[in-house]
């Protein structure tokens, strides 16, 4: 095989696949990192919220609601869910002595319940919604499914939109202020309690949106969140917990490493590489590549 052919038929599709997975992981990890950066809470149930979004899309899609409408509807439906979770579960233990551990445990319990509830309602079988955008486009001799191109575009738009809201709007400034020093922010008139609930709900809505977008590619099953969240955790840690740009950078980097490494070594070894990177980062640079939300 000539080097050009290798580039065209082996390397390029692999990079593209990695890119799709990267955008997918970044979408899930974005909510995780915002919730951590803002509330100092490790949301262990984030993967389950992602699964809830995917199942909501599946059920509502089967009920005849169009894909485009779902993209808006599901995240909106997720917001009250996130608000309720924050109010009923996170808030009561938020001021306990060991906030990290307690909130981690509470959300872990929530994840167990949600996963089983999904199993009760939808069964344990794998389902796959129809691809909303069929067909493929030929690019330099490689066939790229249109939906993946759409996913890349939408993913980039969402990431850009989130970054714009957080870093360039008054609302974002309030959120960052509350993350930096909640008592000071409160005394300057930021409704900290609402900001917290809203941020958590926003992160949950992002997970739901990721569920809607990724269901046609990665199939829908009750434990879908569990497999995905491990990768998302690694991304959040390597990027720096609470950093949006770190999340994007690390997400794309880790998935490219995974995609390209699988060309050289057996694909089954890529998982240990990703988790190993996470462990090394935790050892050497636990704050990750970039700083925290509100701290930089």
């Amino acid at each position, binding site marked *: 095989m000539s080097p050009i052919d290798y580039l065209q038929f082996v390397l390029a599709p692999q990079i593209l696949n990695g890119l799709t997975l990267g955008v997918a992981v970044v979408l899930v990890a974005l909510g995780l990192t915002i919730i951590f950066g803002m509330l100092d809470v490790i949301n262990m149930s984030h993967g389950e919220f992602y699964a809830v979004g995917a199942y909501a899309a599946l059920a509502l899609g089967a009920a005849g609601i169009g894909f485009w409408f779902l993209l808006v509807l599901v995240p909106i439906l997720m917001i009250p869910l996130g608000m309720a979770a924050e109010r009923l*579960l996170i808030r009561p233990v938020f001021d306990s002595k060991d906030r990290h551990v307690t909130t981690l*445990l509470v959300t872990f319990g*929530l994840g167990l*319940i949600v996963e*089983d509830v999904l199993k009760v309602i939808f069964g344990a079988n794998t389902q796959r919604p129809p691809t909303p955008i069929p067909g493929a486009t030929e690019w330099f001799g490689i066939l790229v499914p249109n939906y993946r191109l759409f996913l890349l575009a939408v993913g980039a738009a969402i990431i850009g939109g989130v970054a714009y809201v957080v870093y360039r709007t008054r609302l974002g400034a309030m959120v960052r202020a509350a993350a930096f020093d909640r008592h000071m922010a409160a005394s300057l008139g930021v409704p900290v309690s609402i900001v917290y609930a809203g941020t958590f709900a926003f992160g949950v809505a992002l997970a739901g949106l990721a569920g809607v977008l990724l269901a046609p590619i990665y199939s829908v099953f009750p434990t879908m969140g569990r497999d995905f969240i491990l990768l998302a*955790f690694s991304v959040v840690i390597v990027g720096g917990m609470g950093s949006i740009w770190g999340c994007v950078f690390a997400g794309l980097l880790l998935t490219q490493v995974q995609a390209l490494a699988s060309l050289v070594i057996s694909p*089954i*070894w890529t998982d240990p590489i990703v*988790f190993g990177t996470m462990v090394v980062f935790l050892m050497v640079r636990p704050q990750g590549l970039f700083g925290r939300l509100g701290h930089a």
Partner: protein
Amino acid sequence: MLDRLAISMRASHVLAILLLAAALCLAALGAALDDSFYLRLGTEALIFAGLALSVDLLLGYSGALSLGQALYFGIGAYVSALTLMTVPSFWLAMAAAGLATLVAATIGGLIANRVRGVYFALITFGMAQVVAKVVYNTRELGASDGMIGIPVVQIQFGPFAISAGNPVGFFLIVLAIIMGLYGLSAYLLETPFGRVLTALKANERRVPFLGYSVWRARMAVYVFAGLVAGLSGALYPVLRGFVSPELMFFATSGNAVISVILGGVGTLIGAIYGAVLLVILKSIIGSWTEHHLIVIGLLFMLCVMFLPKGLVGFSRPWIERRIVRVPSQEVTASAVSPAIAKSRSAS
């Protein structure tokens, strides 16, 4: 005079004796009815209780949440299985598993103890994931299927021997080992080293002011907890005759954390009660629905939010009050009253 810690530890011992009595009743009942299912279930509960005990040592005494304690449990199980398949000797398998987890926990401790708090939870989680994935993909270790066909061994006690296939005999051996590990942990916490750990949990920043190394204490308890998990894990293949990578997965670590929270963090015996309770809950709920996670998850969340000391923390104060009343009378009777009597007689 007894201080708070000693009193609550004694209350834990009372609960431990109750558990021991209940377990012996189960063994006697099982032997009388010639049962093997419930005895084996009980043995498994005790084995996982050992894992929960090691999580409680970390979470309850040094305040570090480990989400990957199944790593050492799994290493213990695999090393024990490999040893049993070459040399069918129970004690050799236990020794090999203990040694292997000692080494593994030392390495793991050097990695994990660089960070604390939530990062510690994530790093232990990550380490367990890496090793579990490696085992899952290694064909020599049976890959995703695990290893089957581990022979049933004769467990030697000097001139006597008990077959691991004998449900009552093996149940009693596991009971003795797990309660031994409990006793050893309790003893260790009563030593000055244990007090350093308690101080560590109360206020980590002040411990160095008193001249103690935080790192050394954390490292020591981490290695000891790893050893406890490894020795418990080593019993698993003897019971079930197989090992699988699931033993290292997050679900196993997660179950141990659930056990500790249900039973009571920082009570030691709570971890054992929690693990037993979890197995009972699973089999009771599992008999009418397969969706037991909803109930267990709900109980778990309620415990985290409203019963931070778990079930043992709920019942122990009652025992503590009884303990305090009895010895304090003894103290007055034996030590204080002669002095008072003497002073009275002098005046």
